[in-house]
């Protein structure tokens, strides 16, 4: 059954059809949530709440882009969850914290094909980047995550953010500028492979 048919069935209350949509989009939703929250537990709760909310609101979906509509709900759920738990994203970036294992950076970087040194370097880099992303304002962060990390084109990203393409373009360029400046500030913390002066290594 294709996505449109699944959506129609789900609109009639077919939970099984909706769960097929969930399985198709959960990875994307969770990745957006974890980039926004930088916390496994909050991202997980936000994703779950977003899908529940999406099912309840499905009748309001008019058929532009299910992915964009869903990710808008995920984004809102993330900020709701962050507000609810009154946690600051930056707190999780403390490497010495006992909760380090809860931090996404220690989990998502595991690649069985790489050496421990490579893994450590990628981990450092990911922590530095995530720290820079966390410092962005909400709208800048969302634009950056959607385009640079999720790989959305401007059309999809603007639909998800419910804002014009021109606004998205402006936000994205400013977000990239801020992150670039932030990364310059932590150049010495980045593994040599990932420094700007050796960008050809990337």
């Amino acid at each position, binding site marked *: 059954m294709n996505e449109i048919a699944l959506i129609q069935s789900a609109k009639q209350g077919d939970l099984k059809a909706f769960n097929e949509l969930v399985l198709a989009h959960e990875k994307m939703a969770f990745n957006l949530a*974890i980039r926004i929250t930088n916390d496994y537990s909050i991202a997980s709760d936000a994703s779950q709440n977003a899908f529940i909310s999406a*099912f309840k609101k499905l009748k309001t979906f008019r058929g532009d882009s299910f992915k964009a509509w869903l990710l808008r709900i995920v984004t809102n759920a993330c900020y709701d969850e962050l507000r609810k738990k009154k946690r600051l994203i930056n707190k999780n970036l403390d490497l010495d914290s006992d909760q380090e294992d809860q931090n996404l950076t220690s989990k998502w970087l595991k690649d069985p094909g790489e050496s421990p040194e490579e893994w450590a370097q990628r981990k450092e*880099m990911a922590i530095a980047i995530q720290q820079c992303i966390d410092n962005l304002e909400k709208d800048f962060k969302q634009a950056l995550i959607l385009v640079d990390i999720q790989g959305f084109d401007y059309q999809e990203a603007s639909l998800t953010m419910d804002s014009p393409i021109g606004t998205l373009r402006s936000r994205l360029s400013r977000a*990239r500028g801020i992150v*670039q400046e932030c990364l310059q500030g932590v150049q010495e913390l980045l593994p040599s492979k990932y420094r700007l002066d050796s960008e050809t290594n990337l």
Partner: protein
Amino acid sequence: MNNKLRQKDWEFLSAYLDGELSDEEEHDVRIRLASDNAFDELYKKIQYTHKLLTALPHVDPPRHFTISREMLQSKWSKLFSKSLSWNIATAVAGVMLVVVVLGDVLSFGAALEQSFPESAFVLEAADADFAEVAAAPEALEENRADDGAAQVTSEEAQKEAELEAAPLAIDETDGIEIAGDVQEIIDSSPGNIFRFAEAVLLAMVIISAWLARRKKPKPN
């Protein structure tokens, strides 16, 4: 990004990188990249940042986020979920138990009088019977004195025998009746009712507390 021109440059280069410029704008950017070193340097920085960001791997969710009917329950229906209902039942039964125990301890006498007013009639009736019995020998003597000549007729003898036998008859009949009534009162006294209620409520508290403590299965 400190001046307007630079911000606009960032915006154009950023969109150029993503292939989101019109053909004309793209052409303009290409010409400027070839002629302006600062512009080209800025483009390389944007490219670098973009590459770092896209190099971040995607992470698998820790679990599936499929939903069940139970998850769709409203807050109110969750509030009155089974577990909570049993908690409420425990609390209510507990409060009732306390009330009943207090009632048993503090107001047994008052409850007895209010609940069984007929017991007073029975006791009054018993008092009257005993008074009649007590007066029987005196009535016999009075009767003998009235007749004077100590001639005792057969009727008088019969009456005398009846009066003499009266206390025994009362003991055997009314006494048994009174004793039966009191026993009935004792058997069905508020004290026993209280104790029965206490036992029932205590059982309710224990059962509902046990049911409330039972863990609900976690979704997924």
